[in-house]
């Protein structure tokens, strides 16, 4: 299942080619994603923001209120972040869950500021990935996200990165960009890029830091 050539040969080339040519046109892609979005909504994919996720039984900080990501989206990022951030995540299970949860909260906070138009685009992308039929056909991810291994998530990202279809490249960039920014941009992980933060002498001298 992790072998890409095997995946290619077992999927129907006819369907594959047909979809490729269809998605090559931007309009086709937009209509397709719109249809998926509607279908996913009708078929019960949750489209309401997760709100406050109970701390019991989840990794989330119950004080954070989700304004865009649904519980399905949260599961999607829980599956993708180990592949996107990779060795940047701590290995100790509890610490690892906390870092993933915090990153997902910052992704949500960031998307909230994207405004309605870009939120709509992301909603389409996330619905496509969350809806079983399209998760399998478009992303070629066979298991539901909570069961996807890091290797499978990585293989999916690689397929979209190296795809000849611009729409998939675009999806790859969208997923990795929001995740990378929310992770590497956060103070706790600055050290991973050797960034020492704002110069201390300036922080000490500036009034806006004095009341913090």
């Amino acid at each position: 299942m992790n072998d890409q050539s095997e995946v290619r040969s077992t999927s129907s080339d006819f369907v594959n080619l047909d979809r490729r040519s269809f998605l090559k046109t931007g309009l086709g892609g937009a209509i397709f994603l719109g249809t998926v979005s509607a279908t996913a909504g009708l078929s019960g994919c949750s489209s309401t923001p997760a709100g406050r996720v109970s701390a019991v039984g989840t990794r989330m900080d119950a004080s954070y209120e989700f304004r865009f990501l649904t519980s399905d989206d949260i599961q999607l990022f829980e599956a993708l972040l180990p592949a996107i951030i990779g060795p940047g995540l701590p290995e100790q299970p509890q610490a690892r869950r906390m870092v993933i949860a915090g990153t997902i909260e910052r992704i949500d906070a960031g998307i909230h500021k994207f405004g309605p138009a870009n939120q709509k685009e992301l909603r389409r992308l996330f619905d496509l990935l969350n809806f079983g039929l399209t998760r399998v056909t478009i992303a070629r991810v066979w298991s539901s996200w909570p069961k996807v291994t890091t290797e499978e998530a990585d293989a999916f990202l690689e397929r979209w990165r190296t795809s000849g279809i611009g729409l998939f490249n675009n999806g790859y960039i969208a997923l990795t960009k929001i995740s990378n920014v929310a992770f590497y941009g956060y103070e706790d992980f600055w050290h991973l890029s050797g960034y020492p933060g704002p110069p201390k002498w300036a922080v000490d001298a500036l009034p806006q830091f004095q009341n913090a």
Partner: protein
Amino acid sequence: MQLKDRIAQGLESGWKVTDGATLTENRALEADVVVIGTGAGGGTTAEILAKSGLSVILVEEGRLYYQKDFKMDELSAYASLYQEGMSRVTKDGAIAILQGRCVGGSTTVNWTSSFRTPDATLDYWADRFGLDALAPDAMAPWFDGREQRHNMESWAVKPNVNNDILRQGCDQLGYSWQVIPRNVKGCWNLGYCGVGCPTNAKQGALLTTVPGALDNDAHLIHGLRADKLVMNQDRIDHLQASAMAADGITPSGVTVTLKARHFVAAASAIGTPGLLLRSGIPDPHNRIGKRSFIHPVNACVAEMPEKVEPFYGAPQSIYSDHFNFSGGVDGPVGYKLEVPPLHPAMSSGVIPGHGDTQINNMARLPWMNSVIALLRDGFHPASPGGTIGLRDDGSPYLDYPVTDYLWDGLRRAFYTMAEIQFAAGAKRVRLMHLDSDWYSTWADAKAAIDQLPMELHRVRLFTAHQMGGCGMGANPEDSVVNGFGEHHHVSNLSVHDASIFPTSIGANPQLSVYALSARNSTRLANRLKA
């Protein structure tokens, strides 16, 4: 040291400033002039009109942020100070658009590079668009005036290492380079211009012309979105505007109606065409939103043997115009070479990658240099620019096709950037392209650039300079406004922002906007007082 905060003091002294989020019921206000936008164009316009004694209302969709909010933090700054929380892209998602959305507009978050409009550009406008009055000699006094107003001078401090690499590479190869003029006063050389100047050194609209207007009794309403200019026969009667909630992105439902004798649209090259299209402003030749230019940008990063610390120091201080006009003004597309600052969030978002690859990319950030190329679009028939359109919800988008003519320039720019980085001693170089590896020699990089597909979504493309869309020209059949920014068909509407440029500038556009706005506002003030 600029520790005393001009905005905090002004607010205390009783400036007329209204936060749209505090409005609980619909309002109607009136002034001589309503200025929509508070960036390079709107700020300049408001100050000049207010100083001449006219009553002015300034409308800004973004919010008022100032020193207390500028804490050198990328995540909070990108979310609050940029359009669409820094997620703005072209219609097909292929080009990232960096654009300010706050009081002061992009001048609050730009990297302070301050160039006059190149003579070749002004001469081309005269030839091609009948804009003889904008010839270099005629514009010189306006550039002088704005350079003084915004304290623009060649950066006298040693460039940071990031910029010095561009200088060294150019020196090695015999390419010309120069020092960038910056609009700063008492700059601490920190490196955080892009997230709001923490020391009040940057002399953008936020600390110069907007306070100048407010000192002269102008009224600033921020967190207020300009929805529609409403016509009454052949004149604009009023502006219909929506107050935004405190999050800055959700309309609260409260509306504000603004009546005026004259309206100045200064909402940027995306915002202004969008507003005019939403408003159904007369457009007999279907010119609004056409010929939108962006200086398409591609980039290379390099790992240097010595520490670069690209997050510290004046972000831009060295540039090269060696390849900008070398093919003639309307020959193969030229490009200006500059350097971007690299902080962790921006770097991780711009360098494509994930997993091990990405953490290895990021781990070398202190040794990383980047060079960017800004393509001079719009001077050739094969570079007709993009189009501003409206989404279902009325918000504007930019549709920007990348033509083969531009791809040719982007490929040449990749060669030049990698060559310069290796000439400056780079250990390895990576193109901002989905298929790029790190290349350890110039020959390997060159061979890769020969082969890499120049395709949307694979080449990472950016713009921080939006221009055109309401182009000026002598002939109403191919332009929206005349050479003074006056609308061809609506007598009480002017456009004072980068949307009036008939082509791109070929240099960072802030000074071009300041100078044209000053010139056109001075005329407008005389007209309205006559």
